Structures are given as structure tokens and as C-alpha cells.
């Protein structure tokens, strides 16, 4: 008893000075090239400053020097683990600008691809969150097992495994091959079982609960004020999903729920992603049932010159509201090409979420926001 008492007194008498360390730009927990300049008092973070720009490629400027069609592959390179979802709002914005119609079959295919991409992105988010928690690559490999199936499906339709470049103005580049639908059906039937498996492995895992419950809280009011979107916003208890609030494509024809959290902590953000994957499977199954026959691409002039004007199109991408604001001056290149990047904006409150927590918690909180540096820096 006296021994413990003595030790405590010694610790309290220790004079500590704040200490600055750089997490990143190359650090396994930053999921890319990102730097957090953290000021520590012992193990507790007392200040943190995010430093961006290590992956800035000037995509907006680059896009303004290329034709509309040449910009589609550039959008792939934003959130490069969800490139289908990046294509979609860009082609939607151009379609709005130029008044291009999309065949119904193509709209369904776009929804199927976007939902598959959401599952793939959430698998990666949950897998790497588990990695940040210290489970060295075991859950990650479970997640990759299913992500691989999705990548195979994307390879069937686009020939690519990472940067798909699949959407076009007025539809999609190719119709699906014959082997696609059976493979998709098999995937959609098996996926709910796999999600249960993750739940069994992770959701009631004592370590995961201890490390994520109550950690990195983003209150509801603050989440709205910082313009958070996607699972980050919904985990804070805001029922806002662009697929429901402002449905694009054919989302208004499907039945699905919007999972929300209540506490806005890391656990809720994890939970929302798991539940969203179940909803994605529901949407995919309905889309497969309703998938109409017909063409997948309307004729659009090769050298597209949209009339003078501006357009903003947004979708619910895996990481949040991804929007494109385009201005046309009736030339072949967009006059202005702006990307509303959810990954960047979701990081706005990182200071409030991390300050006061220990260094290890900061890494978990950062992982639970799920950003992609390609989209943050552009």
C-alpha cells in the first residue's frame, strides 16, 4: 500500500514539458501521406494540427486544361479506392450542364456499381480501422477476401481493378458481360453471411469496444456545423443521406434504411459502416431484379461543348457528399472544375475529436473518420 502511494507521489511531482511530434507524412496510421503535428503532454494530446498537401496534384487546374471526356479518368484518381463513385457525380454534372439523357439500364448499372463500391470502400475502412486498433492484418485480410470479389466484378465490366473509368456522359462505357449477373447474385447472396461473420469477430470484441466506445466523440451539433457528411455525420445521429434526401439516378425506386448512430464516437462510425453494407446488399438485390433491357449509352458528341452555364451534382459517396461544380464557357474544356471533397471537410473537427485523448486513441479516431488522401489533397 505504501509502495503504491509513494509511486503516485513521485509521478505527480514529475515536471513534464509539452513535446511536439510529427505523425506522418509517412506513418502507417495515416493511410497515405498526411501529417498530424501533435503536441503531447506525456501521452496525452494537448494540441494537434493537420498538415495537408503531400499528395496535391493540382487535379482541378489539370482538369481545366483537358476536355470534358479526358477528365473522367482524372476523377478516378481522387478517392482511388472508390473510383466508381468518383466517376458518377462528375458525369452527372456534365449531363446536367449539357442536358444529356441517360438510358434506364445505365442508371441501374450505375446504382449497382456505386453500391458495390460502397461495400468495397467500407470494407477497407473497417479493415484498416481494425489495423489501427492493433489487430495486425487479420481482420484486414477477412475484409479483403470479399473486396477481392467486388474487384473481380469491376474487372468484368471495365477491364480494370483499381481505376475503372467506367462511367460516360449519357450512360456507361460497356454493357455488362453475360457472366456478370450470376457472379453478382452469388456475391449478394453470400455477403450478408460475411457481414455477420465480421460482426461476430469484431462487434462484441472486448478490445474493440474498450478502444472505440466513447472515444473521439463528434457531437451532433458540431457535425452539422463542420459540414460533415457520410457515415461520420450519420454516426453523430443525423439522418441525412443524399440517396434519400436528394435521390439521383433511380435511388427513389429502392427500399432501404439509413443506419444512424447516437453517440458519435468511433464505435458508432464503425457500426454505421457495417450496417450500411447490409443496406447496400438490399439495394443491389432490388436493382438486379428490376434491371431493364436496352442500351447503356446514349449518343453524345465526341467533342462535347456544353452551353454556357454552371452545374453542381452531388452523390452520397462512400465517404460522404462528393460533389462537382462545373462552369462551362462553351469550349471543349471546363472553365471551372471544382470538387467538393468529403474526406477533407470531414477532417475539420479533428482537433476537438482528438484533444485530451492519448496518442493511441488519436490514431483510432483518425482511422474511424476514413479519409482517402487522394481526395483530401486532390
Amino acid at each position, binding site marked *: 500500500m505504501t509502495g503504491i502511494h509513494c509511486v503516485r507521489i513521485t509521478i505527480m511531482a514529475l515536471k513534464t514539458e509539452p513535446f511536439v511530434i510529427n505523425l506522418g507524412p509517412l506513418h502507417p496510421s495515416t493511410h497515405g501521406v498526411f501529417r498530424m503535428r501533435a503536441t503531447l503532454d506525456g501521452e496525452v494530446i494537448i494540441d494537434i494540427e493537420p498538415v*495537408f*498537401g503531400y499528395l*496535391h496534384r*493540382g487535379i*482541378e*487546374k489539370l482538369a481545366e486544361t483537358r476536355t470534358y471526356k479526358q477528365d473522367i479518368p482524372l476523377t478516378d484518381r481522387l478517392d482511388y479506392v472508390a473510383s466508381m463513385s468518383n466517376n458518377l457525380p462528375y458525369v452527372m454534372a456534365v449531363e446536367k450542364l449539357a442536358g444529356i439523357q441517360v438510358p434506364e439500364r445505365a442508371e441501374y448499372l450505375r446504382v449497382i456499381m456505386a453500391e458495390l463500391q460502397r461495400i468495397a470502400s467500407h470494407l477497407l475502412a473497417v479493415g484498416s480501422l481494425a489495423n489501427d486498433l492493433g489487430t495486425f492484418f487479420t481482420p484486414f485480410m477477412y475484409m479483403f477476401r470479399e473486396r477481392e470479389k467486388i474487384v473481380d466484378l469491376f474487372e468484368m465490366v471495365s477491364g480494370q481493378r483499381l481505376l475503372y473509368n467506367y462511367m460516360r456522359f449519357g450512360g456507361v462505357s460497356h454493357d455488362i458481360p453475360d457472366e456478370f449477373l450470376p457472379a453478382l447474385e452469388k456475391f449478394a447472396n453470400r455477403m450478408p453471411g460475411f457481414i455477420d461473420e465480421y460482426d461476430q469477430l469484431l462487434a462484441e470484441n472486448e478490445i474493440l469496444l474498450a478502444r472505440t466506445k466513447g472515444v473521439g466523440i463528434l457531437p451532433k451539433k*458540431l457535425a*452539422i*456545423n*463542420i*459540414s*460533415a457528411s457520410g457515415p461520420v455525420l450519420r454516426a453523430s445521429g*443525423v439522418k*441525412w443521406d443524399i440517396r434519400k*434526401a*436528394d*435521390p439521383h439516378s433511380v435511388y427513389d425506386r429502392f427500399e432501404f434504411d439509413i443506419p444512424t448512430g447516437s453517440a458519435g464516437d468511433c464505435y458508432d462510425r464503425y457500426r454505421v459502416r457495417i450496417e450500411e453494407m447490409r443496406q447496400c446488399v438490399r439495394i443491389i438485390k432490388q436493382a438486379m431484379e428490376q434491371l431493364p433491357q436496352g442500351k447503356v449509352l446514349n449518343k453524345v458528341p465526341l467533342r462535347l461543348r456544353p452551353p454556357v452555364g*454552371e452545374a*453542381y451534382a*452531388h452523390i452520397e459517396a462512400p465517404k460522404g*457528399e462528393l*460533389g462537382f*461544380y462545373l*462552369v462551362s464557357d462553351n469550349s471543349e474544356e471546363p*472553365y*471551372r472544375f*471544382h470538387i*467538393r471533397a468529403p474526406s*477533407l*471537410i470531414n*477532417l*475539420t*473537427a479533428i482537433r476537438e475529436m482528438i484533444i485530451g485523448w492519448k496518442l493511441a486513441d488519436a490514431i483510432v479516431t483518425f482511422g474511424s473518420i476514413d479519409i482517402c488522401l487522394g481526395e483530401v*489533397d*486532390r
Partner: protein
Amino acid sequence: MTIALSGSKIADKLKEQFAEGIVEVSRDSLLVKSESLLDIASFLKTTPGLNFDYLSCITAVDYKEYFELVYHLVSLKHNHSLLIKTRCYQRVEPVVPSLVSLWRGADFQEREIFDLMGISFDGHPNLKRIFLWEGFDGHPLRKDYNYGT
């Protein structure tokens, strides 16, 4: 479906208080004077029935004669949206008021515009370059930016 409120509908509500602040009203947007931007934005955020609590997207366009700032406002409560714009005619050290005091979501987006377009935001708590490094010469998204060959 998010209802895009027309500029004229909002202008009617603003007329009483901000008659001088409104420059141009169009079907889908509202152009306001930069001096009254902050007051109008605050009115839009707090007035019952409008409640624009969510600032979705900010961007700036360089039209050579002037810079145009474009704000996409959304009300999560009423599910409606509004596009407000403001212009800045100065090319050397252009300044517009910052909206960070109303919506923190403007923080990084305004820093991005400051960095790439070179527009300063009056009242921003931490206005510095976000993607490019300190000491970088020029603002690449301006139309007259010369980036060599």
C-alpha cells in the same frame, strides 16, 4: 428531393432588411454584395422557415474581371437548398468576409480558396496555405497563372 429555392423567393424575404445588399436575383441563385454577405448568411441560418444550417460547398471562380464566390447552402431540417454568390472586383489582394464564425465547415474550404485562388477571408481564424507550401509564388487556379511550359 432537396428543393432548390429560387433566388427571387429568398430575395422577397431579404428585401426588408437587406435591400441594398442584393445585387442580382436569378432563378436559381442570389448574388449579394460582399459587404453584406455575413449579415445575409447569418439571417439565412437563423430565420425560422429557412434554417440553412449546413454549408455544403464553397468555391471560387476566376472570371478575369472579377472573382465569384459560390456558396451552396442546405437546410437539413427543411431539405431545401440555396445558391448564393458574391463578387470581388479587386485582383490585387481581394478580400471577402469569412463565414467560419457561422459554419465551421468553411474553415478548410476557405483556406483552399486562399491558397489556390488568392482570395483572403476577413475574420478567418487560421488563414494560411493548405495544400501548397509557404513561400509558393502565385495562385494556380487563377486564369492568368503562368506555370511555365
